[in-house]
């Protein structure tokens, strides 16, 4: 593929840093820390991975060998090239300050587009990638809380002019848990697949490590991705975005900032629900948390 800066007159793909995983893994926190450092900007959930990944992996996955299918295998190089231009043109239009200067980076927080991560990383092999993971039981517990009545997700919908419909989280919580565990497997599974296939700069990051020692973990990220950062500035951003700095009234059950407590699932899920998650996401759990899964 030609150098994107030349082909688009703008954004360079190596200056894109993708954050994949799934929702409720701390991606807002991570991208806030990174996005506030000088020279870095943040693209908050473009969902471009969902745009293409949904058709490719879910709705028409069975048609990959069909040469008429727009995302068919025979024309893969061509449509990946178009996806590449799609992303770079959109990034250039939104973040001209990143495109205009060398040495600037764009953090793309895309946990909910992780389904399409393998396609995006194949289309943009020069880009950098963070695979952000969290114990699936904590992820599911967080989602279970978020989708109950009167929580922050309802507020979000109300801001968009809609009322949140009744959720399975209230009426059939075990079914909700199973659905969320499947979503975890889909998102994190595809993000991991992209991570394994990506030959460029990349780093695997656990939410639990970020909570345990934020600054050190952040330093490891920049080092692995070979991106410049001043330690003092990084420390300031870590401090500014720390859990302790969030006002108490903005934290707790039903809020976006809930408890930030690894292992909190033990208090939040019933034993049966924990078993459901372990049954559905067991393979990823064992792989990503080889010790903790036995705890």
């Amino acid at each position, binding site marked *: 593929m030609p150098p994107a800066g030349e082909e688009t007159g703008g954004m360079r793909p190596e200056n894109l840093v993708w954050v994949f995983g799934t929702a409720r893994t701390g991606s807002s926190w991570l991208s806030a820390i990174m996005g506030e450092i000088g020279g870095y900007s943040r693209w*908050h959930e473009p969902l471009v991975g969902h*745009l293409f990944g949904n058709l490719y992996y879910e709705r028409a996955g069975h*048609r990959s060998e069909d040469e008429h299918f727009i995302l068919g295998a025979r024309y893969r190089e061509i449509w990946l090239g178009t996806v590449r231009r*799609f992303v770079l*043109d*959109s990034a250039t239009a939104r973040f001209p300050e990143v495109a205009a200067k060398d040495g600037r980076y764009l953090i793309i927080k895309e946990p909910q587009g992780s389904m399409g991560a393998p396609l995006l990383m194949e289309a943009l092999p020069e880009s950098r990638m963070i695979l952000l993971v969290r114990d699936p039981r904590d992820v599911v517990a967080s989602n279970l809380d978020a989708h109950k009545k009167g929580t922050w997700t309802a507020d979000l919908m109300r801001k968009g002019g809609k009322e949140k419909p009744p959720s399975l989280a209230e009426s059939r919580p075990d079914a909700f848990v199973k659905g969320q565990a499947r979503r975890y497997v889909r998102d994190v599974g595809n993000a991991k697949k992209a991570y394994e296939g990506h030959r460029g700069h990349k780093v695997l990051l656990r939410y639990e490590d970020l909570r345990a020692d934020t600054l050190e973990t952040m330093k490891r990220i920049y080092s692995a991705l070979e991106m410049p950062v001043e330690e003092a500035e990084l420390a300031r951003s870590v401090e500014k975005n720390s859990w302790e700095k969030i006002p108490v009234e903005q934290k707790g059950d039903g809020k976006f900032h809930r408890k930030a407590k690894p292992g909190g699932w033990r208090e939040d899920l019933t034993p049966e629900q924990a078993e459901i998650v372990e049954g559905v996401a067991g393979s990823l759990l064992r792989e990503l948390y080889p010790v903790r899964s036995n705890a």
Partner: protein
Amino acid sequence: MPVFRYPTVSGVARRVRAVLGLEGDVTRGALSEPTRTNAGGPSAVGVAPENMIWIFGTGRTGSTWLAAMMEEPDGHDVWFEPRVGTVFDPQRFQRHGGKHFILASQYKDVWLRSIRNFILDGANARFPELDGGYLAVKEPGGSVGAGLIMEALPESGMVLLIRDPRDVVASWLDATRKGGWQTRRRGEGGRRAESLAETKPNAFVRRHANAYLQHVGSARRAYEAHEGRKVVVRYEDLRADTLGTMKRMYGELNVPLEVAQLAKAVEKHSWENIPEEEKGQGKFYRKATPEAWREDLTRRQVKTVERITAPLLEEFYPTVPAEQQG
């Protein structure tokens, strides 16, 4: 009119036969490697956007039949269900309206150009020798994205292909029952659908009536907004007078075509020319009889379809609905 023939990706009729297990393979064998073209630029090589004709509506409206006829004339070809419309289904992202969303309205000019490139790159790669010819894009299953596609390609022509929703639902019901062509085709997934068609036929009818409303409704809105060449084709008119309807369609689309070529295409793909053993209940070619829903659906099912699809039914089939008849 171009008089050459070029290698097609694969013929519509042949594809249908392959899908139904009546023929082995749907690929076209030895071909040149896909070519990357500059789709965003002026229509230099391959497919010109003004020569694309999009067929939107929903499944079981006769789009395969229409596409097969449209593929026949020299210099015409068919892109068979690319499903590009499914990628750009705005309803899928209704709650993501912010400026960061990839399809945010503030950046519409940027991403509409990307959609245009996405489609034209795909078309040119598949039909590199269609220089100056016409490409019909059979896309009923991608009708949810019809609005954005036609906005990205305002020079293209559009066919809104519709059929009485009661017949469409009756056709799906037959296709997904035990032994139906769709059930056989889908294997494991089909068996699940079959079970709904068999065990909860009323729920199945409700679901497909809603799908009709969503797909045809989206296509209808795209048709309304499209300022280029366009035409509404009713399946029932196509059945009643195929040649006359085809002539009207091409006339509205301003596509020059020799009547003799058209007549030949119509004749070749007529109902009468389909082998008897490929027609009938549970088969892809079922009845082709408008208003057969009167025999196929229960009164309750008819009422369900009429209630859900009322806006479209009233517009395109303005007769007294069954529920108001005696």
